[in-house]
C-alpha cells in the first residue's frame, strides 16, 4: 500500500493541506481571513520544496498513475504558479471579496490538485477526471468578480466566468465524445493500448475531436474566442494564474494523448496540429496589435505563445518535448510576472488601458524595469528566458525540416515586439497623467511574487543550461 501511494505523496499532502484549509476557514472570522492566503502560499511553497526531497517515482493504482521526472516537472511548475498566485491575490481578494476569501483559495488548491494529478495519468479516465477537477474551479474563479458593489462595477465578471464555463463544458463534451470514439475503435483506455491500435476513419475522427476539445482549453485558434473576454473580465491575479498553469496542464494532456497515445499515427494528426499552429501564430500576433486594453493584449499574446509551443508539440520527439517543457516554464514565470505588474498598475480600474501605464518609469522605476523585462521576455529578446524558449523551438523546428515555421515564427516575433513595445513606450517615454504621479502602491507579498518572477526570468535567461537539461531529461523519460 505504502509503495502504491509513493508517487502520489505530493498530491496526498496537497489534499490534506486543503482539508485543513477548509477547517481553518470555518474557525477564522471574516476580518482575519486574509491569513488563509498566507497559509495557501505556505502550503504550495512547502510542496514545492518537498518535491526536491521526496521520492515520487513508481506506479500507483495498478498502473493508472506513474510518477517520475515528467510529472515532477509539471508539479513544480503548478505549485510554483499556485504559490505566486496565492501571494499576489491576498490583498486583492481581501479588499474585493472579503466574505468569500476561503473559497477562493480552496478553489485555487483544488484546481492545482487536478493539474498535479494530470501529467502522471496513464489512462483516459484519470486524465479526464483530473482535467475536469482543474477546469471547474477555473470557471468559478473567473466569475469571482461578479457584481460586488451597488454601482455595478465588475458586472463583466459573470460574463467572463460564464463564457469560460460554457466553452469549457462544450469542449469537455467534444473531448469526451472524441475519446469515446477512440475507446470504441481501440478497446483500450491505456495510452499504451491506443498506440497499438490499427488506424481507421472513426479513430481519426476521434483524434480530431479530441484535438479540437483540448485546443479550446489551451486557447488555440480557431478555438480561442473565450480567451480575451475572460481575461478582461476576471480578477487580474487570477488571470495571471489562468494564463499560465492551466495552459501547461493542457499541454501535458495533449502530450499524453497525442505523443504517447497516438505517437505512431503521427501522419494522421500532425498536419492538423500544424494548421492550428500556423493559425494560432498568425492570428494571435496580428490580433494583439489593435488591442488597447492591456489584459486583452496579453491575452492575444498568450494565444501567440500557445502557437510557438504547438510547434514543439507538432514535432513531437523527445527533444522537442523537452523544449516544450522549458517554454512552458519560462512562459509561466514571465506571464505571471507581467499580469502581476498589470494588476498593480491597474489598481481598482476594471479596464486596464495602455495609457494607465504612462510615465510608469517615473512613478515607480523599479516596477517599470520589471515590466520591461517581462515584456522583453515575452517578445523573446536575448538574456531573458523568453528568448531561449523561442530559440529552442526555432532550432527544433529547423531540425525537423519545418524551416518555414522558423521563418514565420521569427518574423511574427518582430510583430510581437511591436505590440509589447506599445506598453513599454507608454511606461518609459510618455509622461505620467496629472492625476497619477504617485508611485504605484504594492503590498509586500505582491512585491515578493514579482521579485520571484523577475529572478526566475533573468536567472533562466542568463543561465539556461541546467533548466533545459532538466526539461530534456524529463521529456526523455516521458517518451521512452
Amino acid at each position, binding site marked *: 500500500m505504502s509503495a502504491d501511494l509513493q508517487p502520489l505523496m505530493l498530491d496526498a499532502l496537497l489534499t490534506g493541506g486543503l482539508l485543513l484549509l477548509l477547517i481553518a476557514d470555518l474557525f477564522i472570522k471574516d476580518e482575519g481571513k486574509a491569513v488563509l492566503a498566507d497559509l495557501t502560499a505556505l502550503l504550495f511553497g512547502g510542496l514545492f520544496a518537498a518535491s526536491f526531497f521526496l521520492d515520487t517515482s513508481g506506479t500507483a493504482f495498478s498502473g493508472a498513475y506513474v510518477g517520475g521526472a515528467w510529472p515532477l516537472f509539471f508539479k513544480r511548475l503548478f505549485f510554483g504558479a499556485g504559490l505566486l498566485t496565492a501571494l499576489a491575490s491576498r490583498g486583492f481578494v481581501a479588499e474585493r471579496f472579503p466574505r468569500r476569501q476561503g473559497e477562493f483559495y480552496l478553489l485555487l488548491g483544488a484546481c492545482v490538485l487536478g493539474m498535479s494529478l494530470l501529467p502522471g495519468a496513464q489512462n483516459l479516465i484519470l486524465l479526464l477526471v483530473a482535467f475536469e477537477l482543474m477546469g471547474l474551479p477555473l470557471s468559478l474563479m473567473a466569475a469571482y468578480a461578479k457584481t460586488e458593489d451597488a454601482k455595478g462595477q465588475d458586472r463583466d465578471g459573470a460574463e467572463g466566468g460564464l463564457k469560460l464555463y460554457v466553452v469549457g463544458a462544450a469542449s469537455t463534451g467534444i473531448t469526451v465524445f472524441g475519446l469515446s470514439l477512440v475507446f470504441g475503435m481501440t478497446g483500450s483506455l491505456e495510452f499504451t493500448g491506443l498506440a497499438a491500435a490499427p488506424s481507421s476513419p472513426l479513430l481519426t475522427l476521434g483524434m480530431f475531436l479530441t484535438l479540437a476539445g483540448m485546443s479550446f482549453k489551451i486557447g488555440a485558434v480557431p478555438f480561442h474566442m473565450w480567451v480575451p473576454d475572460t481575461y478582461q473580465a476576471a480578477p487580474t491575479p487570477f488571470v495571471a494564474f489562468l494564463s499560465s498553469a492551466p495552459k501547461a496542464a493542457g499541454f501535458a494532456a495533449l502530450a499524453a494523448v497525442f505523443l504517447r497515445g497516438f505517437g505512431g499515427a503521427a501522419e494522421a494528426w500532425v498536419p492538423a496540429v500544424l494548421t492550428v499552429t500556423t493559425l494560432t501564430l498568425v492570428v494571435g500576433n496580428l490580433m494583439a496589435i489593435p488591442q488597447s486594453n492591456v489584459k486583452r493584449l496579453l491575452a492575444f499574446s498568450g494565444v501567440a505563445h500557445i502557437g510557438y509551443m504547438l510547434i514543439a508539440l507538432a514535432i513531437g520527439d523527445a527533444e522537442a518535448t523537452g523544449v516544450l517543457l522549458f517554454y512552458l516554464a519560462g512562459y509561466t514565470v514571465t506571464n505571471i510576472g507581467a499580469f502581476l505588474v498589470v494588476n498593480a498598475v491597474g489598481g481598482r480600474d476594471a479596464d486596464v488601458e495602455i495609457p494607465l501605464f504612462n510615465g510608469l518609469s517615473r512613478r515607480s522605476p523599479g516596477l517599470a524595469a520589471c515590466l520591461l523585462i517581462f515584456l522583453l521576455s515575452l517578445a523573446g529578446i536575448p538574456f531573458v528566458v523568453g528568448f531561449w524558449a523561442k530559440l529552442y523551438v526555432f532550432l527544433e523546428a529547423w531540425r525537423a525540416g519545418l524551416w518555414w515555421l522558423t521563418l514565420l515564427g521569427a*518574423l511574427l516575433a*518582430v510583430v510581437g515586439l511591436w505590440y509589447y513595445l506599445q506598453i513599454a513606450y507608454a511606461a518609459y517615454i510618455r509622461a505620467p497623467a496629472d492625476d497619477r504621479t504617485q508611485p504605484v502602491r504594492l503590498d509586500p507579498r505582491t512585491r515578493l511574487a514579482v521579485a520571484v518572477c523577475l529572478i526566475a526570468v533573468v536567472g533562466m535567461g542568463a543561465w539556461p*543550461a541546467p533548466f533545459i*537539461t532538466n526539461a530534456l531529461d524529463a521529456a526523455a523519460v516521458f517518451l521512452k
Partner: protein
Amino acid sequence: MSEHILSVIVASPFLAALLIMLVPGDRHGPIRVLGFVGSVISLLGAIYVALHYDQARGGMQFGVVYPFIPRFGIDIRLAADGWSVALLLLTGIIMTAGSLASATLTNRPKEFYILLLVLVAGVFGVFVCQDLFIFFLFYEIAVLPMYLLIGIWGSKGKVAAAGPFKAVWRDLDVGGKEYAAMKLTLMLLVGSAAILVGMFAIYFAAGGKSFDMIALAKTHFPRDMQLWVFPMLWLGFGSLAGVFPFHTWSPDGHAAAPTAVSMLHAGVLMKLGAFGVMRVGMIILPEGAAAWAPVVGAVAALNVIYGAVSAMSQKDLKYVIAYSSVSHMGVVMLGAATLDTDGWNGAVYQMFAHGIMTGLFFALVGLIYERAHSRWVPSMGGFAKVMPGVAAFFTLAGLSSLGMPGSAGFVAEFLVFAGAWKSGNILWAIPAMIGAWVTAVYVLRATKMIFWGDGPSHEFHDLHDAKRVEWGALWILGTCIVLFGCAPRLVLDFIGTATGEYLPAIAKAAASIAPVALEIVK
C-alpha cells in the same frame, strides 16, 4: 592577464552599468564618473590588446572559452584577430568620447548611461566573439537599447510632410523620435530574423554540433545552400550597415538620437552590420560571397551615390551627416565586395576611419544643436566668429569625410577604390569616386553655410565655444583623424594580418564559381 583581457573589455561597461543601477538617480556626478570609467577601462584594454597582439604570429589571439550550453554546442568563445584589434580600438575611442560628450545630459542620466553601457558591451562582444550564436546575442544587445535611447532622449527634426503620402506622414509623425525609434527597431529586427534563419542554416548544414565560427569557416558547405544563405546574411546584417534600400531607418534614427547615441550608432553600430557581412557571410560562406559579389558591389556603388546625393539635398544638419553615413558605409560594402586584399583592408580601415570621423561630426552637431536650438542649416551662418574651435574641428571632420590626403578617410577610400580597380570592377570604382566628389560638394557647402558668411543672426544669441570636458571628446577624435591619416600603418598592419589569412580561401572559391545569376541558370 592576457587570456582574460577580452573578457575585461566586454565586461567592464556591463559592470559599470550594474554599478550605476545601485547609485540613486539624482546623483549625476557619480553616474557620469562610473560611465566614463567603464568606457576608459575598455579603451585601455583595447590598447593593451593592440600592444600585445603578435602580428608575426597572426590569427586568433587572447582566446578564451567559457562553456555556456554544451548541449547545443554554444560556448562563449572570445578571441581577437587583426580586424578585432582595429575595431576594439575604434569602439573604445568612440565610447570614451561619447561619454564625455554626454556629460551635459541632465534628463534621467542614470537610465541613459545604463542603456548606453549595455549597448557598448554588446558592440565589444560582437567584435571579439568567435561563437556564431553568442555573436548573434551580442549583436541583439547592441541593437535593442536603441529603442529607448532614441525614444526617451531623442529630439524631433524638422521634416516637412510632402509628396502624395503627406497625410500618412503627418499621422506617423515622420521625423519624430518615437517614429524613428520604432522604425529603427522593427527594421533591424526583421534583419535579425533573416540572420537567425541564416545562422540556423549554417549550424545544421555543418552537422548541428557546434557554433564555433573558426570551425565553421573550415567547413565546406554545399554550393546551393551557400547561394541562398549568403543573401539572407547580407541583407540581415546589411540592414544595420545601411545597405540600400534597407537604409531608411538610419537617417531618421541618427537624426532623432541624442548626441552620444548618434556617435555610437553611426560610428560603431553600423560597422557591426558590415563586420557581420564579412566575418559571418563572406568568411564562412566563401562561394556564396563570390557568387553574390557583383550584386553586393553594385548595390554598394549605388549606396555611395544615392547617400551622397540625398545628403546634398538635406537642410537639417543631422540628416546631412546621417545620409553621409549611408554613403560612406557604401564604401565599406564596396571594399568588401571586391574580394581583394586592398579592397578588404580598405573596407575595414574605412569602418575605422568613418567611425572616428562621423563620431566627431555627431559630437559637433550635438554641440551646435545644444547652443543654437536648431539644426536648420539655411538659418545658420557666421558661427565661426563665436565658436572657432567647433568650426575648426567641423572642417577637419569634413576634410576627412571628402577624403583629403593626410586624413584617415583618404587612406580608406584610396584603398577601396584601388581594390575595386585592381579586381577589375572599374564600373564600381567610377560611381564611387563620383560619390566622393559629391561628398566634397555637400560637406564644404554645409561648412560654409554654418560657419562662414554673415551672422550669426540675433536668434542665435547664446552661442559659445565648447567647454571643459566637451573639448576632451573633440580633441580625442580630431587627433585620431590626423594621426591615423598620417600613420595609417598603426592600424592597417593589424587589418592586413587578418585579411591575409582570410582572403586566400575566398579567392579560391571565387575562381571556382560564376556570378549568381549564371549559377542559378545552371
